[in-house]
């Protein structure tokens, strides 16, 4: 058994009901051997407390709604868990992607391959 299991938090920001994307990504990460903690659509406070209490190694954000909401969540996670890697997906327009990347967040826009996302998770959590 793999004793160095890595834990990934998957959350959605904003008031947006598109579940398919994050669910498929969570499933691919599960199949790659990760423990994926789903919290669904969540407020900034919920995301921050889950990142701390669950001692995750990576946060995956599905960005829905306004980009400012995602940015606030990212900034607060970075305060609570300095150095914790974060990656993001969802319908993120290029200018918004630049804002996220400026915060050190890797962005996987629509059209990204699952295999690339799994690779990124392995790289960011240090299993590869």
């Amino acid at each position, binding site marked *: *058994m*793999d*004793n*160095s*299991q890595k*834990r990934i938090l998957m959350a959605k920001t904003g008031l947006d009901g598109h579940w398919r994307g994050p669910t498929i990504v*969570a*499933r691919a*990460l*599960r*199949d*790659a*051997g*990760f*423990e*994926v*903690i*789903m*919290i*669904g*659509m*969540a*407020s900034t*406070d*919920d995301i921050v407390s*889950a990142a*701390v*209490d*669950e*001692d995750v190694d990576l946060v995956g954000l599905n960005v829905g709604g306004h980009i400012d909401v995602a940015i606030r969540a990212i900034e607060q996670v970075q305060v609570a*868990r300095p150095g914790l890697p974060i990656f993001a997906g969802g319908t993120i327009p290029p200018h918004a992607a630049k804002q996220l990347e400026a915060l050190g967040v890797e962005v996987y826009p629509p059209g990204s391959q699952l295999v690339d996302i799994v690779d990124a998770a392995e790289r960011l959590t240090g299993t590869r």
Partner: protein
Amino acid sequence: MDLSDIHTLLESARNGDRGSLARLLSQIERSPVVESELRLALAGTEARAVVVGVTGPPGAGKSTLISSLLGPATAAMGKTAVLAVDPSSPFSGGALLGDRVRMQSHGLGECVFIRSMASRGENGGLARTTATAVQLLDACGWQLIILETLGIGQVELDVMDIATVVMVVLNPGWGDTFQANKAGLTEAGDIFVINKADKEGAAQTRADLQDSLALLQSPVPISIFDTVAVQQQGVDALWNGVESYLCSAREQGLLAKKQEKRRRRLLMRILERGLLSRMYDYLDSEHGSHRLSAVLRGEIPLEVLQAEMLSSVEAKKH
């Protein structure tokens, strides 16, 4: 991880640092050595927390019910921790831990600590480290610990070895009178909940359960509650039921008696696990793996290997 780090983390976790507590919980999952060290460090700490076990089949609404109980539970008992177990894949080792989805936005802030755990190959409805995690949370001042098992069938009842009170969550249309009289699940509960009670068949399920439970001759009467957790219906009555169970079980000396039994089963389980891991160590060793191959080729009988394995475990002791 350095074993001395564990003591540093434990100290700050006991002083209320959630990050340290969270970190310890992952470290014990990753390493049985760390878990043993922590158990040693916690030995002698008085167990004070009330542990409410919540079990039942997948999709019965356990997580939603727990979420709906957080309000009355924290009001009555203060700081409340939830440990929620979901299954690991026997194929990839990965897991999708989704209980927390139902427990968002409780608005209770620092008063609630929720932690998801993957079962990692355990077959009793919990994870290897759940018992240690409960002990740790207790030592860190979490007075109420709600323990959610993964969705179970009829016999994955390890929760009995840890919980002060076991709540079994079922739904209308769950089985019939024969189902209600089968061994296992219906013998393990101290409190029964028919959740999604607005669905058809709630009365029949209640009647079947009632008949079955009446024959158990429990010293403390076992109650059945109807809830619709998503609408917060019946939840206050259920929480009152938990409190009155605890009260009468305590009065009748049942809690102390059960605690003794629980401790015994738990200790046996830890001993078994320790022995088992020593036996696996033997099979993984150079000599052991050769002997195993010989058994597989039919050159030596299994019984010979078994005897060698046991004497190697015996020899290591000295």
